[in-house]
């Protein structure tokens, strides 16, 4: 137990350092982004029919929200704000704290990512065991190849194919946002039904693009376990096949949980494509839009949040590894 506590403390310390480093990097990148958002907004207002003077004044007021002072002052302000969880003021949403905007977006990213990943994990593991056991057969081979292929196909390719098929050619599923506004939000059948209906395609994309990876991982994990001595011993002792299978499955699945934790963290950042294609208002879409709006505070905040998710996932994965791996538990270094 003390070892776990010590590891956790070490991870947290390193995680904090990482967050500081990332916050610094993102601050300086974001502050060096070229482009004149004021000019863009001015042109937009003019195009809508506003007179040049009025547009110029309006833009001046809006961009009064930008922080002032030297770069160093801005940096210290930003970092001290960070400690208080104050990520600054968003220019495209004046008056709304960046944290609130991020919170809202995170909600829409986490749910489908979670659903899609768990679904693919389950399917992938079952098929992976099968592919490992039948790895000499035609079917096992086909499973492995299809797994590699799905693993290799970019998410956006899958997403576009799904949209073309299910939203354009045979329009049975929506690909426009997270829920129909006509339903009163709350715990009622209509609202939840609409939520789920809108989540089907994004979730399916996550699941489809991830399950190939799980098949491969599970297959190789099972193959490794199959070669272990204790299985051989069990076979020699004449144990029932179903019991042996349980041994195999349990021992093979454990390392996959660490990958699961890691992939959940990474997916938060990788949701960009899926959210863009399905018009799903999560963190990834927020990041793209904030870049287009040159909303510096929001951009930095979204990037930071995504990184924090990965860091937390890493810590969780490592702790999990500590708990399940007896060698680590007994005090020996894992690597």
């Amino acid at each position, binding site marked *: 137990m003390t070892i776990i506590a010590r590891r956790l403390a070490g991870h947290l310390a390193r995680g904090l350092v990482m967050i500081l480093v990332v916050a610094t990097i993102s601050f300086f990148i974001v502050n060096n982004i*070229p*482009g*004149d958002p004021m*000019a*863009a907004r001015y*042109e937009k*207002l*003019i*195009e*809508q*029919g*506003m*007179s*040049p*003077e*009025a*547009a110029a*004044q*309006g833009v*001046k*007021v*809006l961009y*009064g*929200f930008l922080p002032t002072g030297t770069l160093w002052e801005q940096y210290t302000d930003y970092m001290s704000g960070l400690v208080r969880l104050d990520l600054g003021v968003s220019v*495209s*949403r*004046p*008056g*709304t704290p960046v944290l*609130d905007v991020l919170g*809202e*977006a995170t909600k829409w990213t986490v749910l489908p990512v979670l659903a899609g990943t*768990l*679904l693919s994990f*389950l399917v992938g593991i079952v098929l992976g065991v099968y592919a490992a056991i039948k790895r000499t057969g035609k079917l096992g081979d086909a499973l492995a190849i299809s797994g590699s292929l799905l693993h290799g196909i970019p998410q956006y390719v899958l997403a576009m194919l799904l949209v073309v098929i299910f*939203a354009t050619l045979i*329009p049975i*599923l929506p*690909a*426009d*946002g*997270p*829920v*129909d*506004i*006509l339903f009163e*939000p709350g715990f009622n*059948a*209509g609202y939840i*039904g*609409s939520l*789920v*209906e809108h*989540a*089907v395609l994004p979730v399916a994309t996550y699941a489809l693009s991830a399950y190939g990876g799980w098949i491969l991982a599970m297959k190789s994990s099972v193959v490794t376990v199959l070669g272990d001595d204790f299985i051989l011993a069990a076979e020699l002792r004449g144990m029932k096949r179903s019991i042996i299978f349980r041994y195999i499955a349990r021992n093979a699945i454990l390392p996959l949980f660490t990958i699961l934790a890691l992939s959940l963290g990474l997916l938060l950042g990788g949701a960009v494509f899926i959210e863009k294609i399905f*018009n799903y*208002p999560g963190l990834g879409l927020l990041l793209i*839009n904030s*870049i*287009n709006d040159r909303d510096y505070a929001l951009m930095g905040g979204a990037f930071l949040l995504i990184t924090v998710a990965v860091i937390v996932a890493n810590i969780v994965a490592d702790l999990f590894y500590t708990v399940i791996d007896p060698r680590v538990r007994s005090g020996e270094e894992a690597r």
Partner: protein
Amino acid sequence: MKRLAAAVTLLGLATVTACSGGSTTQSGSGGGGGLFTTIDVNRPGLDAAAPPNPYNPKGNSFSAFNAMKIGWVKNHLTDPNQALPGIAESWEIAPDNSAITLKLQPNAKWSDGQPVTTEDVRMSIGIAYTQGSTAFSVTPGAAGAAAEVTVVDDKTLKITQNMDNPSPKFARGVLDTTVLPSHVWKDVLPADFWDKLKTARGEGAEAEKAREEITALGQKVLAFAPAKDVSAGPFVLERVNPGEALLVKNKHFYNAANVAPAQVKFLNFTGNEQIWNYLTAGKLDHSGFVAAPTDVMNRIKQAPGNEVIKGYSPVAVGMGFNQSKKPYDNVHVRRGLAYLINRDEVTKVASPEGGTPATTTTGIHQKAAPAWIGDTVGQLEPYKPDPAKAEEEFKQAGLTKKDGKWTLSDGSPWKVSMTAPSGFSDWISAQENIKSQLIKNGVDAEVVTVADYPLYLEELAAGKYDVGFWLMALGPAPYDIYQRLYGASNGWTNVAGKVTHAAPGKGGNWMGGPEEIEVEGIGKINPGELTAKLNTATAEEAKPIMTQLAKAANQDLPVIQLWDYVNNQFVSNSRFTGWPHDDEILRLGTGVLASGVWIQLGMVKSKQ
């Protein structure tokens, strides 16, 4: 493990129920006939957390739906002051434009039942000052600024213009102002606001300080978040999620009896392709202008009930030259290029539905040009495609042709490098097409894209590009039209009627044109100063000035006008009818959603 399996099973079940839930959704939204579905084309990306504040860039305030203006200014070719009634039932404009007297709608009420008063309008004008508006500006000496706001009685207001620097579009500026409920917004402006405003209009350090305070108030206004939407418009905001916004009918609206839809749904979008999708699916009852390729346009028209209403949009696009770069400083090179580029072909490829090829370069939209400059249009050089003339011009510019390729006078290679922001698909298409046309005629060319519009504008203003596309002819006011060619982008800055000229490459002067142009039949003119004069000129005074400027633009070609935009309004006749086809009311005021105006005035009828 077991718990995990249970969770996944539950999720699976949820997915199954979802599919059955879907059908009820569709029948639910179709029923009743009272739901009006549309989008706000000005604002991609709905934000559930944004307040119903019309000045907030993401605010859930939809002009003409749950936000009212004093009047809805029309898209008239020459008269900027024509409007449809909004919060004001009627108004009188003094013949010399020195004042406008507003009469408010006698029955206008806010959605919480309170009447709309002159105090609401006065406070809204105060708020407009903090944001900057044409009529309500604290900039000293700004043209067309209001001098005094007087409450005559509880339904009448008089607003006078500061006649030191009067503008013919003063009334337009007043009418195009959003009205807010003072009982909700009362604490945003301090009690001494009007005194402060008076100080700000003066001169000296104290006035400067007051102006800064008012600008600071502007930020308070932007960030103000009313707890609940209080609207004087035909609808009031019910709720928003990141994908859609729902508005319901405001039963206190003065013309509620004639408002057809019971509910309005705004759909979210982040790119044009999503709007195309909604339109081809027949989901939208109305959508404002959105650029679409021919094939997509045909699909949209094929959807049952869909109709495309074409109107006039005072916007054109031109190919602008950076005249500080060689060889574009030579007018013959610009003319030669104009003779080489077939504008019909460019428009056909780039904007077949959303634009008409420019007849020639005048600086004015072809539809408005006859009204302003009359017969002069016919006398201008049309720059019809003519390789022989182009060759002549290039030779005159000292360019030489080697192995079928044009080179600069010193023999070094010449490549026309055009830049466009990525995402502006029609501009990129046009440049790709121009590139093909030029290469066919022995002029090497390339298209470079930059990441996005903010970057494009920054680098353009810094003079980094040789050739870039530029929006022009932004009317209807004459000054607004020509300041795109002879304004800050070409060196002339107009502050309070005083014109200064910045050298090429400085102060945003990327066009770098000459300060004076020798125009055939007129003589030497200073186009920037002429343009500045338009700001205070009446329509009749403006016409001769515009004729001179059109001739100058046509002869000197700071830009080659490529196509003039067409205002395509997409409507569906499946659920509602009565769509107007009158050009003047297809585009109404800054950021106004035209369908909201049509609905509130009772033009749109339910189909039942």
